[in-house]
């Protein structure tokens, strides 16, 4: 595998807004999220079902289905504006520079074509000149790379002849066959059972080290995040409520929602009688999102201001920020104390998260 070590940002997403214009009204599936990703970096996106994780990822690769539309913000990939690209340019980008793998390997491969056919097709979509033999050779190399043995036989098999874990390996091979710089994995292990899950994670970690690509890893399992990610973005109701390096998120969570997620996460080392605490309440109705902090209706710390205004991001450490009024309050108190001590005030980046008034 060729080494691709580049400097500079691989992906920058700034204040992205995505809405679905349904007959019932506008669904603000993604309401202003920002992050960036370096080469060689793995970012996890966590959040419960419907929080906008997939929609956000589809926008990057131009796979939003109507009535979905990016209505604001920017996506920059290796310095190029993705949103300004034409349909043709997006086709060239997909599967080539950016690859995506999906949740359910059972339904993501076309049942009527062989594994070989589908792999070769992925390569030929972006490399028109490659010969049949060369393409087959590359496909087999990819299969070997993702830990599949007996590749000649596998090439001729149909998806239903492979196990779920094996199919997900094929999906990964298919995603990587054109050596993408960015891999978006939308819950790639959710549909697999636990042992297979661990194997696939292991494989992805391994491949990431070999290829130096950036990976966006979407999941609602924090355990998976701990396993593979360098940093994490926590999404809630289309907003990014907290973002930071994995250790910070796990040991110094700043947002009540993140804390809730951590409490509801099964831990391998936990005593079996320790109760998991689910987050109370129901997810936000995306058609009529509440004003203020979207988590307020379920938040045990909710204050008056939470219901009125969206909290700004508060810097909690190197690359670690959260959007919560509690943290704003803390910050202000610290500043006061600091001023009383005569020390300079802590730096605060009061960027508005989400909707701008």
């Amino acid at each position, binding site marked *: 595998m060729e080494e691709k070590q580049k400097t500079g940002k691989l992906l920058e997403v700034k204040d992205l807004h995505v809405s679905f214009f349904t007959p019932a009204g506008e669904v603000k599936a993604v309401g202003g999220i920002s992050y960036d990703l370096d080469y060689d970096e793995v970012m996890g996106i966590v959040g419960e079902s419907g929080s906008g994780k997939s929609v956000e990822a589809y926008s990057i690769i131009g796979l939003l289905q109507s009535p979905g539309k990016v209505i604001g913000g920017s996506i920059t990939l290796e310095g190029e504006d993705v949103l300004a690209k034409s349909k043709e340019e997006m086709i060239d980008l997909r599967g080539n520079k950016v690859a995506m793998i999906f949740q359910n390997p059972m339904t993501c491969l*076309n049942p009527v074509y062989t594994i070989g056919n589908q792999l070769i097709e992925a390569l030929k979509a972006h490399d028109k000149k490659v010969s049949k033999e060369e393409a087959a050779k590359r496909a087999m190399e990819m299969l070997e790379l993702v830990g599949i043995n007996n590749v000649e036989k596998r090439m001729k098999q149909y998806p*239903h002849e492979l196990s779920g874990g094996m199919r997900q390996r094929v999906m990964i091979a298919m995603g990587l066959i054109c050596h993408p710089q960015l891999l978006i994995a939308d819950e790639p292990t959710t549909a697999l059972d636990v042992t297979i899950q661990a194997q696939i994670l292991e494989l992805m970690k391994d491949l990431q080290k070999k290829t130096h690509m950036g990976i966006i890893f979407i999941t609602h399992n924090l355990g998976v995040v701990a396993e593979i990610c360098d940093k994490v973005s926590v999404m809630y109701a289309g907003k990014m409520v907290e973002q930071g390096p994995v250790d910070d998120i796990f040991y110094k969570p700043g947002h009540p929602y993140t804390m809730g997620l951590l409490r509801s996460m099964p831990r391998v080392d936990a005593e079996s009688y320790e109760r998991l605490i689910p987050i109370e309440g129901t997810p936000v109705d995306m058609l009529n999102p509440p004003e203020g902090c979207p988590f307020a209706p379920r938040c045990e710390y909710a204050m008056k201001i939470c219901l009125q205004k969206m909290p700004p991001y508060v810097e909690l450490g190197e690359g670690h920020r959260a959007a919560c009024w509690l943290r704003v309050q803390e910050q202000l108190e610290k500043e006061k104390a600091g001023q009383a001590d005569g020390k300079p005030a802590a730096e605060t980046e009061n960027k508005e998260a989400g909707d701008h008034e």
Partner: protein
Amino acid sequence: MAKYILKRVLMAVITLFIVICLTFFLMNAVPGSPWLSEKTPTQATIDALNEKYGLDQPVIVQLGKYLGNMLQGDFGDSIKMQKDRPVLDIITTMFPISAKIGIIAIVWAILVGVPLGCLAAYKRGTWVDSLLRVICTLGISMPGFVVATILLYLLAGGIEGFKIFPTIFDGTWQSYVLPCAALGFYPMCYLSRQTRTAMLDSINQEYIKTARAKGLRNRKIIFKHALRNALIPVITYLGPQIAFTLCGGFVVETVFSIPGLGRYFVSSIQNRDYPIIMGTTIFLAAFIIVMNLVVDLLYKLVDPRINLSKGGN
């Protein structure tokens, strides 16, 4: 595979046997006799005729005899319509005419219906889709003779000075056009609707998302990934329809005076020409059974998940 085919053949034989027995009893249970026409013959003549053709014996004995002869390849002779001409001979001269028209009809129905279905699915919700929906709904709900009559009116002299095609079938290529058009119209419309539904279903499958994520072009996504899967339900419908169309639309053959098997079959029932009824029924049943088997094998070709040797259908 061989085991599967053997099993199917065995099933076919049993089915045929049941069809034969049922037809034989029903045919004899229906009132009327071959000898009744405008000039009713005397009772003595009728008795003599009945004796000559063995119709005086109990039905079960007649059936036994018929089956015995059939196993030796003898399907009897016509007793009325073409007196004493072997039934097998009649079928082998009449079926090719029906089959030829039927094949042309079904081929154009497939070649036009499937792409139109794809088009409607691809353009769903637009005026193209709506227009096709109207045409196809009409085609599905209109009886065959209405379609045939409209075609005759429009293209065969209904309009003053405008007669491109003959009204009566005479074996020339021009005389094939209207019957084939009329016979294929219904399956074309039906196929088109079926294809549309199946295409919409397969377009929403996850592997289409994968295909898009790979950076494939639209044409390839539709025609390679969606269509092949959409064909699976379409083929199911095709089996019986092919048999049905090939054996001659009775209505179309009547409207265009085509000497085909469909029309002949119906008049053989009217005339109580028992051997012809039996022969034609057996032939049609066997044909439909064979077509269904062919379709099941075709299935396997389109859908690799189907494992015939495990007895799955």
